[in-house]
């Protein structure tokens, strides 16, 4: 028997999320209990006060995201976690965080929907809600983990991207990954890259909280640091105050969207597996990507050259990454625990040049490797 390594744990996905948040420097959590995300709150209610952080269970989901934005404006990295119905309730203030450019992380552990749906069962039906849940044209970053270790790493990355780009980042998990207990070897804290928001280097008199410069990402002063600026969800100019000037509104909203578009290569991450000589491309994410990987291995054993593109970033959509590899394949298989939200995007990204075969399941059960395998090897 090996001597146990203290960095090896058997953790649930939700525990890894909470631990990842702490490793990322998160010191504030506000939430509301909802299955299947509640363990994140429970772990942080124990751990945050032990390291001088703050945990608060708010009166509802809306209050939780509001408190998170308030804490972040005060300079503290902040997290909230929820699931489908709660994610719906948070949308208005997610829009506020986008508009006011307040870094924060929102975990949505997907469960079956619509409505109260299947509280204890898995789904991937919030792909489009994560992208467009809040009103108006807006950018967003959405990451989706497939394993416990990746939940840890991605939670850290979510904070880093939120701080770097001044934007709310959604960690789109699912019940399967969130409740899966799996072996994880946590990295040496010193090896973890932590990114903090860019601070202003000008005097308060000269500070423009929404200045348009060559980076498109304005420096962010925290409340109480002498800058005394204004933050609003109304359309505003570079000073942060509301404006009705069409030119200024246009300039700010274009910058808001551009700051993510122009950095999409830094944000978008995919993993490819056996794609070099493939004839069938499988595109999957989250828990489903685990089944897809097994299906690809099994297909190869049966003589069908299949490959997998696993999306780690869902939004911005990895269209360029798909573009690079799909030309030579005969068909594309898209398994997902919804009715085709990603398949639709894949069809767009590939201009419908290849048949896109959908493998969909919305009954709360994960998609099995065999269900994907059948679609890979089928001649139809």
């Amino acid at each position, binding site marked *: 028997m*090996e001597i146990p390594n203290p960095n090896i744990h*058997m953790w649930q996905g939700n525990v890894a999320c909470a631990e990842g948040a702490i490793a990322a420097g998160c010191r504030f959590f506000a939430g509301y209990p909802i299955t299947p995300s509640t363990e994140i709150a429970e772990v942080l209610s124990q751990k945050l006060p032990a390291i001088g952080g703050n945990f608060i269970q708010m009166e509802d989901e809306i209050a939780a995201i509001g408190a998170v934005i308030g804490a972040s404006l005060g300079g503290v990295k902040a997290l909230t976690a929820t699931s489908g119905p709660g994610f719906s309730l948070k949308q208005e203030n997610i829009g506020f965080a986008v508009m006011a450019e307040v870094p924060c992380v929102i975990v949505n552990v997907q469960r079956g929907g619509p409505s109260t749906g299947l509280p*204890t069962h898995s789904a991937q039906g919030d792909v489009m809600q994560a992208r467009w849940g809040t009103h108006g044209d807006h950018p967003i970053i959405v990451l989706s983990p497939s394993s416990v270790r990746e939940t840890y790493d991605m939670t850290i990355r979510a904070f880093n991207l939120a701080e770097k780009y001044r934007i709310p980042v959604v960690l789109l998990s699912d019940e399967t990954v969130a409740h899966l207990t799996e*072996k994880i070897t946590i990295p040496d804290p010193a090896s973890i890259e932590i990114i903090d928001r860019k601070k202003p280097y000008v005097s308060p008199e000269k500070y423009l909280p929404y200045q348009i410069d060559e980076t498109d990402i304005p420096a962010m002063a925290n409340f109480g640091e002498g800058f005394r600026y204004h933050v609003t969800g109304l359309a505003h100019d570079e000073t942060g105050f509301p404006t009705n000037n069409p030119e200024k509104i246009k300039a700010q909203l274009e910058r808001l969207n551009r700051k993510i578009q122009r950095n999409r290569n830094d944000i978008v991450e995919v993993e490819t597996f056996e794609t070099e000589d493939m004839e069938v491309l499988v595109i999957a994410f989250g828990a489903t990507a*685990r089944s897809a990987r097994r299906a690809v291995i099994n297909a190869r054993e049966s003589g069908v050259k299949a490959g997998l593109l696993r999306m780690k970033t869902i939004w911005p959509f990895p269209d360029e990454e798909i573009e690079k590899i799909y030309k030579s394949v005969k068909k594309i298989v898209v398994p997902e625990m919804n009715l085709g939200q990603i398949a639709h995007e894949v069809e767009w990204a590939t201009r419908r040049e290849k048949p896109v075969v959908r493998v969909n399941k919305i009954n709360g059960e994960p998609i*099995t490797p065999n269900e994907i395998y059948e679609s890979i090897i089928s001649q139809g």
Partner: protein
Amino acid sequence: MSFRYEVRLSGAGGQGLILVGKVLAEAAAIYDGLNATQSQSYGPEARGGASRSEVIISDGDIDYPKAENIDILLALTQEACDKYIDGLKDDGILLVDSQMVTNIPKGQYKVVALPIIQSAVERLGKFLVSNIIALGIITKLSGVVSESAVKHAIRARVPKGTEEININAFYTGIDLATHWLDEHGPL
């Protein structure tokens, strides 16, 4: 080629099968240096009576984390046995409590029926440790994890002050399985 060993633990809610799943997975992953996953079905469905916990053990990567080709199925109640037998391999092991599960579903699997709950009550005076007895039997029959790894995992997981009775329960299970193997020959 890596191996993949699938365990499904089923019974009634409250029988401690999720704990058994966690201990087994921790024994494999933390103490035996293998890979393991553990998952469970819970919620409204589990309150109806039957509940299950699944453990996958491998020396390679574990992609799909749910049991599909089960190597060993534990059933502590008839309802759980009927409900969760699907997926047990033809040459898999069906381990049942001999008093609770009297109607053995037809199939090619190897049936091991042992008085798990009765042993807990009679040998250890505690119905609650049936789950750890079952863990001992699974450890012996499966051979997929080492006894010492499971023992360490039990000590690390069970509430303080209950280590000894749980270790005794574990060895009661090993003992039951050993006798069964002596009597019936190797699986």
